[in-house]
């Protein structure tokens, strides 16, 4: 395919009406007794996607994944893989493999035999199995450990064996249940990139379940934020972050300042929000028309709030306050500023110079400012 200089192919099959989804959830509901774990979910996942299910524990994300693997059956609705309803297919016949949170490596088998386990149950000719196992061992760089038992290798290595084992049968879909949960932070970050690498190399569709928003943002092409069995928002990581559709999503992903107020004026796609007595209205761009008098939440990320010791002249929104707390995180500093009336607002500044002298310190009078497009106005 000839490419125009300067344009890159964007992987976004969800925007392409010609693309057929690999997985389709159609009005799927799952009840355990009275408890509704999955509440009428409709969702499409496309081939080669790295799809993240994100939410707090008990939100239904694991149930959704276990339904794909075949360990749970939906109470209502259908799940299609490649256009086929998978409800009657038992787990051992699905073109789906799963990497378990506990890794579920067979303790009585060596690394080699663990990886070969699925291949031996498949219709792959016996003489091709060793080559495939070797290939998988190379993929996860564990060639030297093939003769070891799972208890003789480290946690990170076990994680890679589990990944190799679930990829060995070249499934159409790989499910990863909190795959990095048991690793420490540094190893987790390295492994995230490794996972993305492997996903790209093998071209497998990955569905990952995680409660770690950073992990979801790092690895996924799209993120689905779930709560109480419902999909709250399904979007690319940047859109989830920059244009959350609800206070729940804004609050769940990253750090955010949320200010509640009433729309006092609306014109030219902008709204003025009354948020505290005696304060200037917050002027913000609104995507839809919002009637005057509507209660709204204004959400703005701390890094989009500037902090200064002088009152800036050219910003749409300027609020005065005093520094209540400073958190120095190395690469950035977060200032917690007390606004008149006791409300707190966080502003984040990148520490792009080594600090010899900090300009702002505790109890200083400061001005916070942001543009009218920096935040989002949320109705719910």
């Amino acid at each position: 395919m000839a490419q125009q200089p300067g344009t890159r192919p964007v992987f976004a099959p969800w925007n392409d009406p010609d693309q057929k989804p690999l997985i389709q959830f159609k009005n799927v509901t799952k009840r355990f007794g009275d408890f509704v774990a999955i509440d009428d979910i409709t969702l499409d996942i496309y081939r080669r996607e790295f799809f993240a299910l994100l939410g707090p524990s008990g939100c239904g994300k694991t149930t959704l994944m276990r339904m794909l693997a075949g360990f749970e059956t939906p109470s209502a609705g259908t799940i299609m893989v490649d256009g086929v309803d998978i409800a009657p297919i038992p787990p051992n016949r699905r073109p789906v493999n799963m990497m378990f949170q506990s890794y579920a490596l067979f303790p009585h088998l060596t690394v080699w035999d663990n990886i070969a386990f699925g291949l031996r149950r498949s219709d792959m000719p016996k003489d091709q199995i060793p080559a495939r196992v070797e290939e998988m061992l190379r993929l996860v760089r564990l060639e030297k450990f093939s003769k070891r038992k799972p208890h003789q290798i480290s946690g990170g290595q076990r994680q890679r064996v589990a990944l190799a084992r679930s990829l060995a049968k070249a499934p159409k879909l790989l499910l990863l249940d909190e795959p990095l949960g048991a690793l420490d932070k540094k190893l987790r970050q390295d492994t995230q990139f490794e996972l993305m690498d492997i996903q790209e190399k093998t071209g497998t569709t990955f569905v990952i379940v995680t409660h770690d928003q950073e992990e979801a943002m790092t690895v996924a092409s799209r993120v689905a934020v779930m709560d109480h069995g419902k999909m709250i928002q399904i979007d690319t990581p940047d859109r989830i972050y920059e244009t959350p559709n609800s206070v729940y999503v804004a609050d769940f992903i990253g750090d955010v300042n949320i200010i509640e107020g009433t729309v006092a004026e609306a014109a030219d796609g902008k709204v003025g929000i009354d948020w505290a007595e005696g304060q200037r209205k917050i002027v913000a761009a609104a995507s839809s028309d919002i009637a005057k008098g509507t209660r709204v939440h204004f959400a703005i990320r701390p890094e989009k709030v500037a902090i200064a010791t002088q009152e800036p002249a050219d910003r749409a929104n300027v609020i005065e306050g005093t520094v209540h707390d400073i958190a120095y995180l190395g690469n950035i500093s977060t200032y917690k500023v007390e606004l008149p009336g006791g409300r707190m607002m966080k502003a984040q500044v990148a520490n792009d110079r080594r600090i010899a002298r900090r300009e702002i310190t505790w109890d200083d009078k400061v001005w916070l400012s942001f543009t009218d497009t920096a935040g989002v106005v949320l109705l719910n």
Partner: protein
Amino acid sequence: MNLRRLFLILTPYAWLLLFFLIPFVIVMKIALSDYAISIPPYTPTLDLSAGWEGIKSFLSELDFENFSFLASDALYYTAYFSSLKIAAVSTVLTLLVAYPIAYGMAQASEEWRPTLMMLVILPFWTSFLIRVYSWIGILSNEGFLNQFLLWTGIISEPLAIMNTQKAVYVGIVYSYLPFMILPIYAALEKLDGSLIEAAEDLGCSKMSAFWLVTFPLSIPGVIAGCFLVFIPALGEFVIPSLLGGSDTLMIGKVLYEEFFSNRDWPVASAVAVVLLLILIIPIVLFQRNEQKQREANQ
């Protein structure tokens, strides 16, 4: 601090010395003695008042005559072999009965498990002797089993189970069932359920997941259970003498008869010593298995 450690180490050794080694030496000594019509019914007896000379003459009178007698008389070695056979067969039978029960217990919901465990242990609350005795009432020609089967019309003649080898197997399987169930249950209960799911996910049917994952991982429990049944069953005396007939030859019964009917303490002791030597092999293997388990769990 050092005294404390010494005490801790010495206590089990002192226990073993007092309750295992000294009795064993006494039995061994009797086994090397000769039969005599006296009290005690063997000779020589150690007379410490005669001093060094007494000990020397005592030692010179000990011999292995009783052991060579055991080897020469067919009764004894057939009894040993028959005991080994009965113990081995009943161990296998117990395993076949116990495994499904243990598996069922491990599959049961969390709230039911203590109750099921209780039911397995419950028989221990009654005397072993009474429980074996009550099987006579069940298995005899006029027993409950035969009466029930005759009543249902399945059989027209009472089954001859009592006083045969079959009754011995029933008795051993019944009596030692908990010793087989508990270690297998312990192994199955700690099995991570996601391993079975992983096996199914990788293409196993429920059946092959059982044979490829569940069963191999329960083998340590199976081995422990088999030894716990095999070792006591080998020397079993009560069950064959209450339920078995003349065709059931077991070394425990022979031992009893030598001791109480023949009053031949030296031969009875020799029988006991050989039984112990035979038992040492499975006991050592059992200890090895336990040790391996402990290492694997670390």
